């Protein structure tokens, strides 16, 4: 946690940009705002370039001698491969509509966190290296006229500092008249940085873990099973139900993949218990057979924050494992960037998944036409469909202690449009639901402040600043309606929000959608539940707990 009190952090928001132009203001790498350098051992796992120990605070970043050439050629290649990059480099008119749409800009006031300027950091070099105007004007010393500059070490450090202050949430791209997507620019910019081995460790080590063990947290197969068995015990204690999750089971109907964060830390673990209860219910009542995988034990994809290639290398496991196990289709858990990868990249990168079937819910008969090629269904779609067809037995009153608001995770909102499915589920499992103000939800939702690999501990000031707009909206509904719970469908949210809430709105706790479902699910022959999945007394059961 940062030492600054909330009002001190608010007072630090710079109201105006400095007098001096941004090109003449080099980045000052400040504690609390940056993440530690990538561990060279992790960089080695995937054979990524320039693995060596380095420290961003030191002058020498231990770059290869020809680093400028590497970046120049990498940039050139990406311009040839991505029309998006060319267009986004060329057509921005700097109207500034994106500026105060970024949570990091709103929360810090640092002008280089305006999406337009974050992109200009790269554009300035692009104009110098790749445009006719830049080359001509550069010769007569007029490069400033069009905002062109050479790539120096100071510029590179500025790239690093600010490309890792973007959570690739795409809120700015909703407002841009040309749809310029900073997430795309940041991703490709980070690819260039990775050519020099200057990643952050909060990304480098998870991708290394994910590559080797199947998940970001480096949980080995036996430990993964142990952790789920631990939830089995908890569930038995709470409900008396004996659950037997299947692992790596060949011939199961469905493979289920969720972020490993859900098996690892509270409150994601309760969401995980919710999934397990749901699957148990479906197994008992409808003989629906779902398996977990220890090999494809990660839904999230920190490769997405590194490069397209690493994204593909990590994502490949999903289809590989589905093929090996011979399942019909894949069901995906609650996660943000994971779903952008699945929805917009997976099929293109690692498809076609012609060994799978077009997803059909055997319980309701619903064909998931929208997933007929990728063959992967979002669990909110799946559960909403079950509820709509009255296939779940729900006791909504079990969540009566919850006064809920719902945070649309950035990528399901702006990279998919998954807006109503979770709300439909919520309305069927929770009686008190209040929306945050309209400019802060749905396609205009604000990031948790820790997306795109920025949910480390050492950059807590950045996270708390970037999370301010979201927290502020939560605070609004807390004060207005007494909201005490923030619902999410993202594992990073569940990891990031507890600290954010504790700092800005300590009265509000964090909950996943399927924890609410798990609480509400009624099983035939279960013992009368007195607590929710967290072991907190259910409404009206407070007395019983004392007996």
């Amino acid at each position, binding site marked *: 946690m940062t030492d600054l009190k909330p009002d001190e952090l608010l007072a630090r928001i710079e109201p105006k940009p400095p007098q001096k132009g*941004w090109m003449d203001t080099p980045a000052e790498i400040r504690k609390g705002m940056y993440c530690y350098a990538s561990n060279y051992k992790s960089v080695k796992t995937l*054979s990524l370039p320039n693995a060596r120990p380095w420290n961003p605070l030191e002058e020498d970043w231990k770059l290869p001698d020809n680093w400028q050439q590497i970046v120049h050629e990498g940039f050139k290649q990406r*311009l*040839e*491969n*991505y*029309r*998006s990059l060319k*267009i986004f480099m*060329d*057509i921005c008119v*700097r*109207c500034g*509509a994106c500026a*105060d*749409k970024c949570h990091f800009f709103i929360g810090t006031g640092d*002008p280089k966190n*305006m999406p337009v*300027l974050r992109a*200009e950091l790269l554009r300035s070099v692009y104009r110098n290296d790749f445009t*006719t105007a830049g080359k001509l004007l550069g010769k007569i010393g007029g490069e400033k*006229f*069009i*905002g062109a500059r050479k790539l120096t070490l100071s510029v590179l450090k500025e790239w690093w500092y600010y490309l890792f202050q973007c959570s690739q949430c*795409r809120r700015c*791209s*909703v*407002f*841009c*008249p040309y*749809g310029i*997507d900073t997430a795309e620019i940041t991703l490709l910019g980070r690819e260039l940085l990775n050519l020099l081995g200057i990643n952050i460790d909060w990304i480098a080590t998870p991708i290394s873990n994910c590559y*080797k063990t199947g998940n970001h947290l480096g949980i080995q197969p*036996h430990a993964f*099973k142990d952790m789920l068995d631990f939830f089995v015990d908890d569930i038995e204690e709470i409900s008396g139900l004996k659950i037997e999750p299947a*692992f*790596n089971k060949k011939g199961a109907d469905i493979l289920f993949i969720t972020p490993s964060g859900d098996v690892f830390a509270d409150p994601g673990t309760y969401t995980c218990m919710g999934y397990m209860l749901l699957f148990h219910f479906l197994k008992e009542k409808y003989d629906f057979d779902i398996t977990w995988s220890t*090999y494809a034990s990660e839904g999230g994809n920190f490769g997405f924050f590194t490069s397209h290639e690493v994204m593909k*290398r990590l994502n490949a496991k999903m289809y590989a494992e589905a093929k*090996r196990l011979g399942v019909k289709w894949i069901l995906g858990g609650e996660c943000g960037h994971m779903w952008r990868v699945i*929805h*917009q990249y997976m099929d*293109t990168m690692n*498809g076609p998944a012609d060994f799978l079937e077009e997803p059909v819910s055997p319980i309701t008969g*619903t064909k*998931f036409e*929208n997933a*007929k*090629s*990728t063959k992967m269904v979002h669990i909110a779609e799946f559960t*909403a469909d079950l509820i709509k067809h009255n296939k779940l037995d729900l006791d909504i009153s079990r969540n009566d202690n919850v006064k809920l608001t719902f945070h649309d995770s950035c990528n399901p909102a702006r990279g998919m*449009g998954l*807006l*109503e499915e979770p709300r*439909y589920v919520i309305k069927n499992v929770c009686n008190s639901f209040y929306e945050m103000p309209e400019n*802060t939800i749905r*396609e*205009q939702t604000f990031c948790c402040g820790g997306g795109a690999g920025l949910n480390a501990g050492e950059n807590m000031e950045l996270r708390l600043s970037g999370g*301010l707009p979201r927290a*502020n909206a939560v605070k609004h509904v807390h004060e207005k309606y007494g909201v005490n719970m923030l619902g999410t469908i993202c594992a990073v949210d569940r990891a990031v929000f507890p600290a954010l809430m504790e700092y800005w709105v300590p009265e509000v706790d964090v909950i996943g959608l399927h924890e609410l479902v798990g609480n509400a699910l009624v099983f035939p022959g279960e013992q009368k539940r007195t607590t929710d999945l967290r072991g907190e007394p259910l409404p009206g059961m407070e007395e019983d707990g004392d007996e």
Partner: protein
Amino acid sequence: MNINYIISLITVIVLFLIAYIGVEVAGLQILFGIFLPYAAFLIFIIGICYRVMEWAKSPVPFSIPTTCGQQKSLSWIKPNPIDNPTTKGAVIIRMIFEIFCFRSLFRNTISKLNGGSKLSYKLEISLWAFALLFHYSFLVVLLRHLRFFLEPVPSCIKLVEFFDGFMKVEFINDFIHIGLPGIYLSGFALLGAVVFLFARRVYLPHIRYISLASDFFPLFLIMGIAISGIFMRYFTKVDIVGVKELTMGLVTLSPGIPENVGSVFYVHMLFISVLMAYFPFSKLMHMAGVFLSPTRNLTTNTRAIRHINPWNYPVKIHTYAEYEDEFREKMIEAGLPVEKELK
């Protein structure tokens, strides 16, 4: 004082002087009235085509539309087909809204930290309104000017003129003759919108901070074009017959320089020529680029239809077999199924 706009202003003033003195002193009518317009027009057309072809050369490896509304998923959930388009037709509608109505810009809000602790977001449509005014008045001005390049003047152009000039204002005395000829709204609207776009770049601190000289330059240039045009029409009363003789000469490829066309006209021509020649090298290419933006012009049904990446290449992955080799013993011990038993 901001060096960025001073430089741009000076550049435009120098352009003015070059044309004015060039005509008045050196008699370079042929240069400003014939050669530069032809050259600029060629650069404009060839330049834009070249830039668009350059963009088109790069493939679109991934389908990355920004979804701004409910997806099409379950049959009973109402999708938002415009902001989350799943068909080509819907994409076209989305693009029409984007290009003709600046839909995304219409969402613009302004965020404010009230009382030091409470954030609010208010709709802020002035940028949208003035951007729209700017582009549409420019379009009307352009259409009106087609009368100089077509003989006889098509009736649709006359219709545009009629509506553009519907506001009849007359103010006539010995010195000022406003109302004869009739006022065209578009010219003044264009000038007003440009002044607004300039003023926000100067007065809003953050917009000033991101503005480059190359952002001010086209604004001053367009201001110069509008002012010189207004000046000729309402004040110096340029010899309209002479102007049409020159412009018709240009389009019929039999150029000539008529007499009695004042030097302000050549200033006007130089400004336009510079704008045309500058266009393909600058951010003004957003006019063409907006059509190609992959976050707007692609369908969002990316899980239903596979998008093909032409350069998709195989990558090294950590296979299940390698994984099991590493963990087999532990997996067996934990009761997890394995492909190969221990030897």
